[in-house]
């Protein structure tokens, strides 16, 4: 069964299902569009003709058992992995499979890694300074000096991600949850319009998870956010449309209640 048909069969009421997936339409409708992407590692298909559309301003959660291809999907979008087949369109125009990581990042696609990755030997302030949208060339960086307005923006971001009092501290001394927030803050400083968050609440306390949910919800609408997550409670609290990946393609799509009621989703999660 094709993925489009799967969606049509399982969620006939959804507006997305009515649109054929393989026909590009207006850019606004398709902030991100994966078309039949296949990635194989030594014969193992991490992604198997995966097609997926994320609309502008949408908050989308991607779930799936281990090895379903969630992280590989992010690798393909951000240029870390080149697909064997298929295309990835950004804003309906740019084919991301032809660009490298830095070029993709400069288009406005930001990625938070599964393991929080911040510059541990720099302060929280400096981490955000490097992320700040600015010319990225070596000479430009050599000559760059922060303007007062930019310092203000960095401080405002530190406030927003709850790290105002860690401004002077090394990022390496932050807690796991704080590093996750700092990394999200870096994506925002980078002025990313499409945010890919790989397990943003992994290893967080309940309280931190809640705060992260508030932060992510505050981004939706203003930016497009794709969240890969295992934590079902977190996904539920986001109240977003959910895509279930399994063996490299879409198994089901819809609200969290809808997909959790799907017999095949239960099957792949619990094993046969």
């Amino acid at each position, binding site marked *: 069964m094709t993925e489009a048909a799967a969606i049509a069969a399982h969620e006939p009421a959804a507006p997305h299902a009515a649109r054929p997936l393989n026909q590009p339409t207006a850019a606004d409708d398709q902030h991100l569009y994966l078309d039949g992407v296949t990635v194989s590692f030594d014969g193992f298909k991490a992604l198997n003709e995966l097609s997926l559309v994320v609309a502008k301003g949408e908050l989308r959660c991607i779930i799936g058992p281990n090895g379903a291809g969630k992280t590989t999907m992010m690798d393909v979008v951000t240029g870390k992995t080149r697909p064997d087949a298929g295309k990835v369109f950004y804003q309906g125009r740019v084919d991301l499979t032809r660009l490298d990581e830095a070029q993709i990042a400069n288009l406005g696609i930001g990625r938070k890694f599964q393991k929080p990755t911040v510059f541990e030997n720099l302060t929280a302030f400096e981490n955000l300074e490097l992320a700040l949208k600015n010319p990225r060339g070596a000479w430009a960086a*050599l000559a760059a000096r922060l303007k007062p307005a930019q310092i203000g923006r960095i401080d405002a971001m530190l406030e927003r991600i709850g790290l105002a009092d860690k*401004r002077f501290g090394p990022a390496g001394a932050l807690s796991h949850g704080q590093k996750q927030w700092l990394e999200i803050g870096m994506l925002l400083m980078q002025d990313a319009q499409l945010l890919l968050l790989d397990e943003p609440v992994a290893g967080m306390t309940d309280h931190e998870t809640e705060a992260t949910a508030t932060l992510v919800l505050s981004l939706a609408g203003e930016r497009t956010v794709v969240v890969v997550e295992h934590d079902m409670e977190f996904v539920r609290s986001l109240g977003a449309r959910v895509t279930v990946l399994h063996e490299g393609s879409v198994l089901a799509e819809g609200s969290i209640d809808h997909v959790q009621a799907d017999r095949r989703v239960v099957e792949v999660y619990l094993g046969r």
Partner: protein
Amino acid sequence: MTPLHSALSRLLDGKGWIVLGGLVLAAVVLVPALNLAAPPGSPFRIPDYMVPLLGKYACYAMLALALDLVWGYAGILSLGHGAFFALGGYCMGMYLMRQVGTRGVYGHPVLPDFMVFLNWKELPFYWYGFDMFWYAAAMIVLVPGVLAFVFGFLAFRSRVTGVYLSIITQALTFAMMLGFFRNDFGFGGNNGLTDFKEILGFDVQARTTRVGLFVISVLALALTFLICRFVVTSKLGRVMLALRDAEGRVRFLGYSVTMAKLFAFTLSAVLAGVAGALYVPQVGIINPSEYSPANSIEMAIWVAVGGRGTLYGAVLGAFAVNFAKTWLTGAAPEVWLFFLGLLFIVVTLFMPKGLAGLRGQWRGTRKPRFTARRRAAEAGDD
């Protein structure tokens, strides 16, 4: 509260300028005065052999700074920096050979002695122009710079990092050594270039010339320090530190890691080349042994001993290790290599931040870079 970055993007603070100025002034005033003006037999007199020796240390310190820029900041451990140093040295050596003129053993007006000896009839094309100082000076910068640019571009674009990069830099300098050992390569083979007479019309053996070269070396060292300091206090410097810690993150922020590394590597090679060029007239010879892999490894030890990622640590390390080397190879030459190995082990185990980190270690703080600010931040928390 003053913004954090202002302290970080300052070239030097007031105290730093005073220390740097004081050291440079002491070196360029005291050494010449105590060598040229102090009466023979005076206990304060700096003996003649000491002046080029100190000049040589200053060149090594420049080289250590260049290595610290790539290793301590960008995390690129080059074990082939001797190649760039030697290339700068050979360019200077070629200029000095052309200055010999008819005063060579064979008295040939154009060909250096070794070419006459090899029965060569004319000057190879790559020796053209080296009779002019400006041309040689340009080559001192260009040859190491272009080699580093091309080599770095290929290596960094292919994302060769860590120990693999160290190994290919080592291979680079080894290959250069084998090439320069060959007589038909046209650089004097085994013996290299030596028996220099004049530099810019000054007798290279004269006491005043040697003092002059020493002063220029010290000034060049100070300038190199300021250039490196300018780079590491810029935003590019923070990009370099960032890619040392998390290269992928830097890429996903939209920076070209290749370009940042290439900038650091090329600048570093140019600085190393200039250091080599100042070194050659003071030691009076350049030969292929400068390319030997062991030399390049020793340079990494200077930086490790001094403390990497601090710049002044590299200078400190270069002077300390080379003083020890001069003293030990005189007093007990057979133990020098054992000492060097032991030093490296001791530093790695007990002084991970080198001499520059000792102050912080004694204070019981792990990361000196953050202590003042952390205290300020903690005070703010209370």
